[in-house]
């Protein structure tokens, strides 16, 4: 921002000050080495400063979040691992107990969550800006995102890499709930999946098409 203003001001000043209408003869000015060295020193210092700041802030962003008192007890020592799979054009989340959900991810509050991003088809980018950093889900290579949040509630998210036709409609939602609700949700999800599974098996055994 400062850079833009500086360049613009310099441009405008030069243009106003040195219009040919003013009638002065052009000074055949050449720069000495010393001035260029000084400019170079300022630029280098600025670049180095930004680089150091960049590393500091990146390190901060990469800090492993710890599970707090209000969080899921079982995630105390190690973050809760959830697998997020991008597929055209839906996000699938697999929980540690084998349950899974589509579109909506439910996580316990105040708990360190490690999202393992993977894709089964094309490259996607998982993007829930209020919650965690953006990260790509690329087939064949796991990308990890660590986050934890202290507020319960729902967070909207979407995908940020062109993935084909319904790219703009490939959205997701993260619901942050209390650990108890999370446990209940995962249990219920697992039971639902199991009963649906049983139902399908039953239908097939009876010779019907599910």
């Amino acid at each position: 921002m400062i850079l833009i203003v500086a360049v613009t001001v310099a441009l405008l000043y030069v243009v106003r000050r040195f219009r040919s209408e003013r009638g002065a003869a052009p000074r055949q000015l050449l720069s000495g080495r010393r001035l260029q060295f000084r400019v170079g020193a300022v630029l280098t210092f600025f670049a180095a400063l930004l680089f150091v700041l960049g590393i500091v802030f990146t390190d901060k962003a990469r800090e492993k979040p710890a599970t707090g008192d209000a969080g899921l007890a079982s995630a105390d020592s190690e973050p809760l691992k959830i697998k997020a799979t991008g597929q055209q054009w839906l996000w699938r989340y697999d929980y540690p107990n084998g349950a899974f959900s589509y579109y909506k991810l439910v996580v316990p509050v105040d708990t360190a969550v490690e999202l393992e991003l993977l894709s089964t088809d094309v490259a996607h980018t998982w993007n829930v800006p209020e919650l965690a950093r953006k990260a790509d889900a690329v087939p064949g290579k796991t990308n990890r995102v660590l986050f934890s949040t202290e507020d319960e509630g729902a967070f909207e998210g979407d995908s940020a890499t062109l993935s084909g036709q319904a790219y703009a409609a490939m959205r997701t939602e993260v619901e942050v709930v209390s650990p108890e609700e999370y446990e209940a949700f995962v249990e219920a999800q697992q039971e639902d999946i199991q009963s649906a599974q049983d139902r399908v098996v039953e239908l097939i055994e009876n010779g019907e098409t599910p």
Partner: protein
Amino acid sequence: MSPSPRPELVAEGFTPSRPRWAQLATSADHKDVGRILVCGALGFLFIALVELALMRIQLLVPENTFLDPVTFNRMLSLYGASAIFFFALPLAIGLFYYVAPLQIGARGTALPRLGQTGAALWVAGGVVLYAGFLFTPSEAGVNPLAPLTEKAFLSNNGVDAWATSVGLATLGFVFLSINLVATLRTMRAPGLAWRRLPVFSWAAVVSSWLMVVIGPVLLAALTMLMIDRNYDGIFFADGSGGAPLLWQHLSWIFFTGTYMLILIFAFGAIAEIATAFSRKPLFNRTVVMVSLAAIAVVGTLAWMQNMLTAPIGIGWMYFAMLMSLALIVPFGFVIFNLIATMAGGTLRMRAPLLFALGAIFAISIGLASELCHSLVAAAWKVKNTTDATAATHFALIGGSVFGGFAALHYWFPKMTGRTMGENLARISFWTILVGLLLGFVPLFLAGSEQGQVIDAYKYFAGTGVTTYNVIASIGVFILFVGILLTILNAIFSREGGAEAGHDPWGGETLEWFALSPPEPHNFDILPDVRSPRPLRDIREAVGNRTRRSEQRAARESQPVA
């Protein structure tokens, strides 16, 4: 034996044996080839703008249904290919190809048929791209990331047409660049040492080497893609040993290098214009020349700056950040020296200078916001939002539209013998500037504040981006009109512009020594070059001689006492 002046054959006004178009199509002369590239580039610019405008109409209101998603993605892919491969690159390379041999006092190029082949390949690429439009254009985006481009996900011919077209164009650029490298290496006028080379020609050297390095990288990637799609290859397919990330690395090396090439071209042109229009020498030639070379090397090494959200190691991310931030130094040097060149001069505010100033302004905005995208932690927030779209457009519209148009206005008299209309140029400039600011500043805000994602065919009401998108669409329509004005100006000035003469701007480099338009052999006689400002030396010498002969005549006419 002293060398005696050779007799010269002069044949004026002979009729060409073939029609003009046949002459042009079969000519290997660098001026004809350059003209084909520049005219073609302006044509494709118009087409690219139509596609951009269609996309902006779709994004005028939330959840619009003007274009269906597939059509939108096709427009996006065509727009990307047209703007980069068929406008920005050929405009830069075409102007290099036309001007650089003139600037170094060469009577032609080293490998004329190679360059001609290059231009023909480029034309073929353009035909393939839009022939693809007749059946199915690519739907995979500006840089179509594997594995979306694999047969399994896009089974129609679109991606094949895209790869063929872009491949032909790139091969053409490589051929043209090889010729430029050879020409600039071997055919400089006597006394024209590297240190005395005009900055635009130096930019041509650097850009050509850059294209010779990055062009084959893309060609290799495209070949792999074609093998994947048509011969069951697995280069970019996951699972059986392929790596989708490989495409990202290879393609970003090319696209990042291209970004740098366009900016190097723009800065080279601006340096010429700044010196000519302020009647001052470049503030520090050596620093500018070294900086341009550094931009090519360091800039291309920063390719992973585009992959900061991909699953690559944090060390690589820091490397990308280091390279991107290191670019502050050469870019800063160039911009500082350009402004310092103009300071203290006598600025004649003609169209080329106006566009050049616009270019510095727009490029500085684009580069400054690109800085934010280089800081890893910030990139994790703003990458792949419309903030990135805006940053890229500011830098590349600054480079290839403002910078390219500055160069076009500056060398148009050389190419056609006529200057472009000044008033229309001014109107066009201000329209483009307003259009650019209105069209892309809102996208900065929509991207960085609301996180609107890149390349999406729709957005949703209630996400706070509607106003931004409406303003952006209006801005792009204004931009469209502004650019159209310059294209029309060029078309009408070709026949109807004011006669320019061989040196309308008081330039200091050798191209202004030739006629406008130059003869097929460029120069009747070649001067010895003794400084970076050969034409100024010639002017001074002629002036001195005239003064001396006048003084002698005055003395001789004195009555003898």
